[in-house]
């Protein structure tokens, strides 16, 4: 099993945010977790990344248990998160941000080749490479956040609301970039509020409601399901 999350229970203080959350991602698959604001999507990704610790439950990656490992150890094993709000390093240049992406020993040796590939994928970033990140526009910043994750040569790329706060034309651009990555064989776990878009490009999807997985299925099937259409697509 590539990524397996089983019976995850996560609390913020006394408040339980995730209830027995279980799901899987196969290699080269693109899975999306959709749900409304506050459903626990970000919490799920932060727990996989080791930023939050679960009260109970287990996370396996490539058949190795990674529950409770510190973030930098999880990153070393090939899981990369593009966090909500991007979390770029605002005072570092575009190139420095990208080099930080390749901080892992494994990625570091090939950092200059990877940098070239990433610039081919996102030519805008090459034009801006000496600019500090805080001067980038929203779309450029999102591209940089994704590109920075790619620099780590991840086996699993997790994206937290990559379309959040972007103008519609930029949303298209970001989803194009994600589709492109998928075609190149990257395994992707995508969290989205943009339900239609998310389900459209994903192989499989899970619906997260109030911290519980309530529905799962193929992306296309979920798009057609009565429940999803009513609750998320307002049709």
């Amino acid at each position: 099993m590539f990524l397996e999350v089983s019976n995850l229970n996560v609390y913020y203080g006394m408040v339980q945010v995730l209830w027995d959350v279980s799901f899987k991602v196969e290699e080269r698959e693109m899975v999306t977790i959709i749900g409304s604001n506050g459903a626990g999507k970000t919490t799920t990704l932060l727990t996989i990344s080791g930023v939050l610790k679960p009260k109970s439950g287990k996370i396996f990656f490539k058949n190795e248990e990674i529950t409770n490992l510190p973030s930098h150890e999880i990153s070393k094993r090939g899981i990369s998160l593009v966090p909500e709000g991007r979390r770029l390093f605002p005072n570092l240049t575009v190139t420095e941000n990208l080099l930080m992406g390749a901080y892992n020993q494994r990625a570091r040796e090939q950092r200059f080749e990877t940098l070239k590939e990433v610039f081919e994928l996102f030519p805008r970033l090459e034009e801006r490479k000496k600019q500090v990140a805080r001067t980038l526009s929203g779309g450029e910043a999102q591209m940089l956040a994704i590109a920075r994750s790619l620099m780590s040569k991840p086996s699993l790329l997790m994206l937290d609301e990559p379309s959040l706060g972007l103008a519609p034309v930029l949303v298209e651009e970001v989803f194009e970039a994600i589709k492109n990555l998928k075609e190149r064989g990257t395994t992707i776990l995508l969290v989205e509020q943009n339900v239609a878009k998310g389900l459209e490009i994903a192989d499989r999807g899970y619906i997260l409601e109030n911290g519980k997985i309530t529905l799962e299925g193929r992306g296309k099937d979920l798009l057609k399901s009565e429940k999803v259409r009513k609750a998320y697509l307002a049709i």
Partner: protein
Amino acid sequence: MSLELFIQNLINGTLLGFVYSLVALGLALQFGVMDIINFGHGEFVMVAMYLTFWISLFLAIPGSATVVLTAPIFFVFGIIIYKLVIDKVIEAQPLSQIAVTIGLLILLRNFALAAWHAEPKGLQYQVLVGGFKVGDYVISISRLATAIVSLVVLIVLHLILTKTYFGIAIRATSDDKVAAALLGVNVKKMYTLVFGLGCAIIAIAASFIMTFQQVEPMSGMTWGLLSWVIVAMGGLGGLSGVLAAGLIVGIAQGIEITFWDPRASLAIVYLLFILLLWFKPKGLFGKR
């Protein structure tokens, strides 16, 4: 009062300003990366000055040469203090952090008072002595050497922070430690190294300060106060901010000494600081 005296004091103030920057640099680095104010900073300087004194005495080497020992010793000292004390409060609320580092201040100061008594100690072995004349003005060799060393350390640190992977990771951690950890930076290890590095810089400064000053158990207070003002004034502007703030403080003291009582020079520094807070509340280079 003469113009010559004014210019002489200006020269001295400028040279002193470089040292101030260097002393504040260790604090600025630690604060910038770890978001913790070490209230024991001045006492670290004082202990490093004593260390210089004792090493110089026992090995019979000049104070300036002790730096090859004091810097590494203080690097290790910093790592030990981090592991034993700072690490325990790094995620605690600011109040606990303040209490703990003030505890360090009192511990070190009282230890110094008990162990070394109140009388000031100065170096026995010196090579950086005397001065030379430029026109009508005297330039002290020890102060000039200290200023040059300060500038060199600042430049070297700047190069480390901008040109090396380690340095870029330090700046990244300072910007966003969670994002850095997500990319594989071991943040606790980074903190440990940065605290050690800051302490090594303190030791370099202290060893050179000893070439023109004596040390006594209360010496730390002045250095602590000056460093906090300098970091508050220029800290957010990075290294150039620290350098500029250090020079401003040094020059302001030079001017004050010319026109008024030298004993009031610290008061002038604080007056300047309060004025700055009125007009530029985010410091000289505040961006955030």
